[in-house]
């Protein structure tokens, strides 16, 4: 035992106690761990910074030369000086709205059922495990699903290869993630709150609506909006359900016609189409498009944080 017993302290003087308390062996291991952790953090940040710097550098000709033109031009993978992201931004935002409308209510409802109503039966456990597995299914598989169901089978409703089919495919893709994050937020609500509501004679639905959902709202919101930013960044399923890669002519179609009948593209799909082209010109265009997608995703995440803070303030 390196440590002295209290009895032996009786003889120590104030001076020797001071040396004992201040001059003890340094916590070398602890310092080492701290240094390693700091280094990993620095490395991760460095990679991110390098990515952004590289993107800016690469896209500088576009950013400095024709940024306004780039933002307002349509998709054109044949001519780098004409290429732009206007349609892609609009497509991504439309997709995001469709995902939000379809996946959020559906996913939250599923989570409420699984957490508050389903109990612990074998059937409920089976569904929970399956939802977790679905969250891990590669996105391209959802593209095939979208092609079979939304484009081919439900052609009459979606209009075939439209932004609606794309949005639905993405909604199905993020649905498991929405269910899982909403479930976790619901599970984090203390049981005592439910007991308090039941204790004054609330029904299950009154308890869920008045207390459980409001308490879980910040967590649910954060999770769902993060799912949204994942949907905004997906290219693979959209390529299968008909995201346009080459040249997209919207002509004089109205907004509603474009949504229900016209072709569509999105930011990741546009980046994909530009990245396939050769030459420094297209490298710059690809870089600029990537940067704009990055900004879009950051904006969506910022919205998530803002919404969460707003909801938390209510109580």
């Amino acid at each position, binding site marked *: 035992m390196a440590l002295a017993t209290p009895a032996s302290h009786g003889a120590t003087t104030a001076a020797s106690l001071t040396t004992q308390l201040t001059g003890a062996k340094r916590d070398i291991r602890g310092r080492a761990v701290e240094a390693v952790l700091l280094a990993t953090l620095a490395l991760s940040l460095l990679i991110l910074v390098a990515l952004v710097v590289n993107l800016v550098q690469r896209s500088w000709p576009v950013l400095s030369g024709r940024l306004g033109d780039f933002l307002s031009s349509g998709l054109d993978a044949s001519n780098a000086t004409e290429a732009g992201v206007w349609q892609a931004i609009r497509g991504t935002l439309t997709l995001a709205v469709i995902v939000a409308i379809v996946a959020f209510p559906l996913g939250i409802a599923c989570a409420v059922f699984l957490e508050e109503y389903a*109990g*612990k039966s074998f059937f409920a456990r089976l569904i929970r495990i399956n939802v977790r597995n679905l969250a891990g299914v590669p996105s391209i598989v959802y593209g095939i699903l979208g092609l079979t169901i939304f484009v081919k089978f439900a052609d009459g409703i979606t209009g075939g290869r439209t932004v609606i089919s794309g949005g639905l495919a993405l909604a199905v893709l993020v649905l498991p993630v929405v269910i899982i994050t909403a479930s976790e937020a619901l599970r984090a609500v*203390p049981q*005592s*709150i*439910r*007991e*308090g*509501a*039941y*204790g*004054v*004679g*609330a*029904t299950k639905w*009154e308890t869920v609506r*008045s*207390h459980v959902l*409001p*308490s879980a709202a910040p967590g649910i919101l954060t999770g769902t909006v993060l799912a949204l930013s994942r949907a905004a960044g997906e290219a693979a399923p959209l390529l299968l359900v008909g995201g346009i890669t080459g040249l997209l002519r919207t002509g004089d179609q109205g907004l509603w016609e474009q949504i229900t009948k016209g072709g569509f593209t999105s930011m990741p799909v546009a980046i994909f189409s530009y990245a396939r082209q050769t030459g420094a010109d297209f490298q710059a265009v690809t870089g600029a498009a990537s940067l704009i997608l990055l900004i879009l995703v950051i904006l969506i995440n910022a919205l998530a944080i803002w919404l969460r803070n707003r909801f938390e303030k209510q*109580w």
Partner: protein
Amino acid sequence: MMDTRVTVKTQDGVEGMDANNATEAAPVFRTRDLAVYYGDFRAVRDVDIEIRGQDITAFIGPSGCGKSTVLRCFDRMNDLIPSARVEGTVEYHGIDLYGKDVDAVEVRRRVGMVFQKPNPFPKSIYDNLAFGPRLNGIKKKAELDEIVESSLKRAALWDEVKDRLKASAMGLSGGQQQRLCIARCIAVKPDVILMDEPCSALDPIATARIEDLMQEIKQDFTIIIVTHNMQQAARVSDRTAFFTTEVNPESDRRTGVLVEFDDTQKIFSNPGDDRTEAYVTGRFG
């Protein structure tokens, strides 16, 4: 001084009830061969008990003796635990609480509950109080205001919070939160209030306030309190039930049993069972 005041009030209450309540003799709760299982674990067995109206009844006993489990049968809170199963009968004013057509929600509107840890809703003080009445269909603001005020007054909390009814209930102290929970219970005008160790998370001063409060409201409500604190049971209750655990020698598993149920004074001064005496004199548990 406090004692005199309480006694007078209690007597008034009893007289009033004798005069206009013919069913006074009938118990509020009566259990027969009550046993509760969690999965295949039998938590408590063979409980036969009659709870009289307008009394404070205390359940005491060592940890794991099933006193909280029995308490949670009276408002069907055990329903919330998926594995819990109740055998035997629990009658409330002669009606089988676990009968086929009995709605647990309706039971809980008549039998309120105060929990061990204060559990105010993360909302304003006003909304905490108004939640129950709103469930009962009361929507007029004036009526809700009246209920909120009178409930907070009954729970001796009004003077402390009347200027901040819109403030979050989470900002109150632990003792205030627990009195808020009692007020929340009172606001739905229940017949019975169950208290599951309501003071175990509170300091002695807050505890004393809750005990005073119980004396204040006992003439209007039947109160059953589970407590680990024997002095508390002796101070506040009229009747005391002592539970303990019995070990099954074959399976080595513990089950709670009701040992003795009598007037509090008798339980603490002249108990009929050796185990009760050992417990109340501090020799075990």
